[in-house]
């Protein structure tokens, strides 16, 4: 019998070592988080807070200092701890890639130039070991984005504790991703072109192709079509202003061209992604009312002459100018768990921690169009949040004890924590 138990135990261990963490069940009773420092996500902070959570929603956020409010349901004392809205990682390939060097595990890049009909969500692997590794860092939501081509495809916003991709969907088809051409292009040395970058002679032509595609889509979606054109049809929500056109663009000239393009094409919701040189024309970007999702903050400057800290400080420059800014992940996957530290990095260059927090919570939610339900600790929003013992934007402070997605108490274990525990146990023998 004893032997059997050991066998069962061993079996379980093996199981947990290969499978993903089991998604948490729905919230049952009411929960009160009491005494924690609530970092709202909108720049405000409540040092001694009381937060009510019911049916997966935040039903109240109060300052306990000034109010005497009775806790309801299960009370969790989080005194001296910090509560944050779940961090959002936009511009990732989470769930589309498992091991980037193994082609069989890659699903992010379809062939073809104009692929708005290609949709990331249907390939999203909810059981990825990489996806679960986000959660212990407070990253609970992500945008999963197809790559490559001129129009890469359609992205979706997912929550990171799901049985399958349908279960994971927070917002399906939040937008289409367009890679804007570069007016300066890298020589394809493997084709015998000069190495280094030189002016791209076909830039104007490449831009025209994009305009043509938009015009064609517009003509197509204008009425009924007996014969369906999948790419054109997929542009409908963009043209109707119901979802975002994410334009991945870096150069100053290119960004200005995008702003002109937005007006000329009558596009309501354009988001700049990457936007390396946007800081040089921050006022114009702000005036055009175009939000920005930056590249990884932990990036090197693009040119030898650029300020060493330009990637660290551009978020503040844009924010100061009135641009709605979020921090992105440059299409990466496993690195996305570091997004809290990208926000932390920005604080070294002039921004406060609370404002930096908005760059990975409320601002992101606004840009992705999910801010009515997510992105801040506010009454009526989803209880997608976590508790950390320290400042979650600090490497040494980010220590997530409890995390919820829509009030569901999710597991913070991962393939990695299990290996850690297993070997610590080995050495303690």
């Amino acid at each position, binding site marked *: 019998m004893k032997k059997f138990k050991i066998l069962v135990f061993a079996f379980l261990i093996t199981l947990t070592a290969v499978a993903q963490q089991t998604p948490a069940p729905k919230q049952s009773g009411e929960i009160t988080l009491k005494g924690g420092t609530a970092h709202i996500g909108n720049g405000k902070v409540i040092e001694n807070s009381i937060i009510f959570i019911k049916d997966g929603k935040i039903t109240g956020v109060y300052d306990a200092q000034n109010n005497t409010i009775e806790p309801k349901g299960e009370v969790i004392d989080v005194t001296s701890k910090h509560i944050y809205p779940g961090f959002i990682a936009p511009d990732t390939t989470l769930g589309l890639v*498992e*091991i*980037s*060097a*193994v082609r069989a595990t890659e699903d992010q890049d379809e062939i073809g130039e104009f692929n708005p009909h290609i949709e990331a969500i249907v390939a999203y692997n909810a059981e990825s*070991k*990489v996806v679960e590794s986000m959660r212990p860092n407070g990253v609970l939501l992500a945008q999963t984005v197809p790559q490559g081509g001129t129009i890469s495809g359609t992205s979706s916003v997912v929550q990171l504790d799901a049985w399958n991709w349908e279960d994971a969907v927070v917002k399906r088809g939040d937008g289409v991703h367009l890679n804007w051409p570069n*007016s*300066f292009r*890298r*020589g394809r*040395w493997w084709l015998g072109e*000069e*190495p*280094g*970058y*030189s*002016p791209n002679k076909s830039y104007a032509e490449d831009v025209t192709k994009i305009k043509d595609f938009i015009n064609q889509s517009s003509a197509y979606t204008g009425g009924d079509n007996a014969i369906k054109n999948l790419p054109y049809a997929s542009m409908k929500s963009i043209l109707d202003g119901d979802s975002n056109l994410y334009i991945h663009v870096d*150069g*100053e*000239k290119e960004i200005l061209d995008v702003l002109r393009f937005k007006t000329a094409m009558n596009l309501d919701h354009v988001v700049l992604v990457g936007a390396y040189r946007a800081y040089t024309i921050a006022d114009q970007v702000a005036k055009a009312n175009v939000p920005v999702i930056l590249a990884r903050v*932990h*990036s*090197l*400057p693009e*040119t*030898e*002459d650029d*300020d*060493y*800290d330009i990637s660290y400080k551009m978020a503040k420059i844009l924010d100061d100018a009135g641009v709605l800014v979020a921090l992105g992940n440059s299409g990466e*996957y*496993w690195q996305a*768990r*570091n997004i809290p*530290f990208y926000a*932390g*990095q920005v*604080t*070294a*260059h002039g921004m406060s921690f609370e404002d930096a927090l908005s760059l990975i919570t409320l601002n992101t939610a606004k840009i992705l169009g999910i801010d009515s339900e997510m992105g801040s600790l506010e009454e009526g929003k989803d209880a997608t949040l976590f508790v950390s013992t320290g400042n979650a*934007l*600090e*490497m*040494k*402070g*980010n*220590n997530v004890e409890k995390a919820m997605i829509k009030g569901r108490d999710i597991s913070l274990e991962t393939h*990695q*924590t299990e*290996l*850690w525990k297993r*070997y*610590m146990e080995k*050495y303690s023998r």
Partner: protein
Amino acid sequence: MLKKLFLSGSFLLCGFLLQAQDYFPKNDGVITENNNYTVFKNATLHLNPSETVENGMLVVQQGKITAVGKSVSMPDHAVVIDLQGKHIYPSFIETYSDFGIEKPKRKSNGRSPQYQPTREGYYWNDHIRPETNALDDFKYDNKTAEAMLKAGFGTVQTHKADGIARGTGMIIALNEQGTAADRLLNVKSAQFFSFEKSNLSDQSYPTSIMGATALIRQVFVDANWYKEGNEPTRDLSLEALNNNMNMPQIFKGDGVYDDLRIASLSKETDVPFIIVGGGDEYLRMNEVKETGASYILPLNFPDAYDVEDPFQASYVSLSQMLEWNQSPANPAKLQEAGLTFALTANGLKSPDKFMEMLQKAMKYGLTEEQALASLTTIPAQLLRQEGKIGSLKNGAWANFLVTSGPIFDKETVLYENWVQGNKNIIKDADVKDIDGMYTLNISGTSYSMEISKSTEKPSVTIKQGDTKLGSKITYDDGWLNVTFNTSKTKEKQYIRIIAQTDKKPLIGKAILEDGTESQFTATRTSSTTENKNDENDDEDEDEDDKDTEIPTVMPLTYPDVAYGFDSQPKAETILFQNATVWTGEDDEALEDTDVLIKNGKISAIGQNLSASGARVIDATDKYLTAGIIDEHSHIAAFDINESGQNSSAEVRMKDAVDPDDIDIYRDLAGGVTTIQLLHGSANPIGGQSAVMKLKWGSSIDDMVMDDVKFIKFALGENVKQSNWGSFNRFPQTRMGVQQMYTDYFQRAKEYEARKKSGKPYRKDYEMETLVDILNGERFVTSHSYVQSEINMLMKVAEDFGFRINTFTHILEGYKVADKMKEHGVAGSTFSDWWAYKYEVNDAIPYNAAIMWSEGVLTGINSDDAEMSRRLNQEAAKTMKYGGVPEMEAWKFVTLNPAKMLHIDDRVGSIKKGKDADVVLWSTNPMSVSAVAEKTLIEGVVYFDIERDRQLQKEVKQKKNELITMMLAAKNKGLKTQPAKKEEKQRMQCETLETIK
């Protein structure tokens, strides 16, 4: 055959065959030996750069100079040429070219790398081809010869520009009229080398600059061994190399760091290489001067960038702009340094540009005397041809230039370039000036005609009344020929006139619009022309501008890129007051503590310290720590992997250091002071590390710590080439990796035994390195991922009686931490990298914490230029993942890597007597908000955040200044090149191909 020889472009050839070759039978006529003399009199003779004879005489017979001087006796049988007012100079010598020898085209035989040689009887490496003789592939190239003659060259050294050892070159006289036998001055004139592989073979090794350097080192050792008769078999390459050693040895580089590498090869091989420079020697003049080598310099000054479009201009870096601005001063800098150098037209698109570039260099300070010497006497001396070419003296070849004035003056016309006594007319000296205003009468109609620039590029304007008529002129051989259009409608109607020009007024034949012929007259009314005056006035002004304007050369910085220093920074005495000091020695932070830096060392740590003359820095609320040490870095390198063989123990990363890499500065801005520049992970046995301090702006020698001896090993997917589709190099499995190590160490043992036995042995740089490892004199840092291979390598080492010093990356170190502890190996890992390839599936961010808790000496490294500059944050991640205490975590990036590198007696902590490599942080360095404000190495402030803010502005200002200059250059009509951005390649372990 003869006909072919004379079919030579635009040249007027007045030649004769030199030697009678009297033993050759002649069946097409009688033997016509010419023993007449040609005497040039009344010329200004420039015998050599320092001796000039006014109104001198030069006597030539049989292609050689038989007499030269103020007054020499007039020989019988002489043709006399009066050169009153003209100058004679020795013709120039082109020292470095591939004239007449086509570079072989690269033929690739597929995607799979080829590791074996393709030849038998020659050296094992196909890129070593000293047996190559230039003559074998030589075909006299008339077209290039003409261009060279026009540029003033009379002799050319050529070679086959292919391969690392390229064989022998030869010297050719550009004697258009002569035979091959006449022209060949020296069939084996010099031996050539370069760092570039041959196109004739796909053999992989070497794939890198450090590999090529190592190969050359080994070749010379092998050649000596062979010379001593130690090899039982023939090696035609080594034989040739040895035979070629009595010639000048010319080494082609491609920039100043090649120069320095060649100079150090000179030292090690004891071969005095003549260095073909890159033209950027000015960047590192101190080090170049120290080489004391002779140079052959190109004049390939870049054109200004077209910066009219500000968006495009923004892609051009400050260093590219500076190169445009500063490089024309390069020859002047070498002159100033007193180095011997020849000048070459090599590297220019065409020799036509040569004189223009030379004049440009002279505007930047190159003297006439030096320029002439660098084109005549110095090349002759470098090629050991003194007395034969390069000066006007008895017995020398009659290779000389006839000019209208001092040769380097802009107005001077080069009339003739004589080679071996044969005249090549570049510009007819006898052309009569017919410039002026003429009244032209044709069949009763009168026109005004003005002719200008008749001696150079004739142009004509014809007017009827005030109406200008379309016209064309040719003026050649004393004949004037003008065609003009008299029609006022679209229909064209031409009058053509032709006349000999020696009569006044001009009288000749006119052919009218309808084809009828009549006579015309043209009477010159004035010898100056309105047109000419107008035009030339403008141009003269411009020309004057160009001539008299002293070019503004931007001051050099150290290094000469953005964020360089105005002058080499010096060590300071600095007192940091009231800092929170993390010594790395104590378990607690020292509050309100002073640290005194003096003579490059940490001189005192305590409270209320004072020091006279010290710069006091208030460090209240700030943190002072030792500089960060990155155990695994690939910044500051031209190449990372020598992947041409499964072992490359002979290569040295020091040979690939790029001291101008901006990532050095960025690392300093992140508080990093020391890095281990590691070889990549393309092969199980990599190359020797360069452990270096990031002394921005210093020389490579000052940065690299030569006495710290490490080598990179690598395990796993990279060395078995799993991810780059190559299947023919051993090993392909982890099983093979183990046997590969065993084999190499076994051979090293046997090598050492032989060496110790007293018997002769062939010095093998690869084996020497491995023997050092066996003897604990060089330490192994091994790239590693999974537990099986980590375990394996420790066992191999134990079998051979040494230990592995460090496992780097070591992502599964946590699985064998106990075994690591037992072996005594350190673990230097990533904080949280994983998922990017199969072997990192079980990589966990708790790795460092587990290794550390098991007592393994643990560190955090980068392998990444971006991460390297914030290793403090990566260390902080170990507090999150596994709860390492703050002070211990801090050691992961300071004292522990110092211990791993065996430099903890010098760096890694703040301790009295250690090097003053310290960082002042704005706040707790483990905080994500911390910014390095000052980074010092040996008491020198290499990074200062205030200075950086200033420099960020200055970079923009400097660029603006340079852009203004470039715009001015473009407006002047100077040539520009489109904006471009140089490729900066970030390298990691796996970087195989470097973009050149």
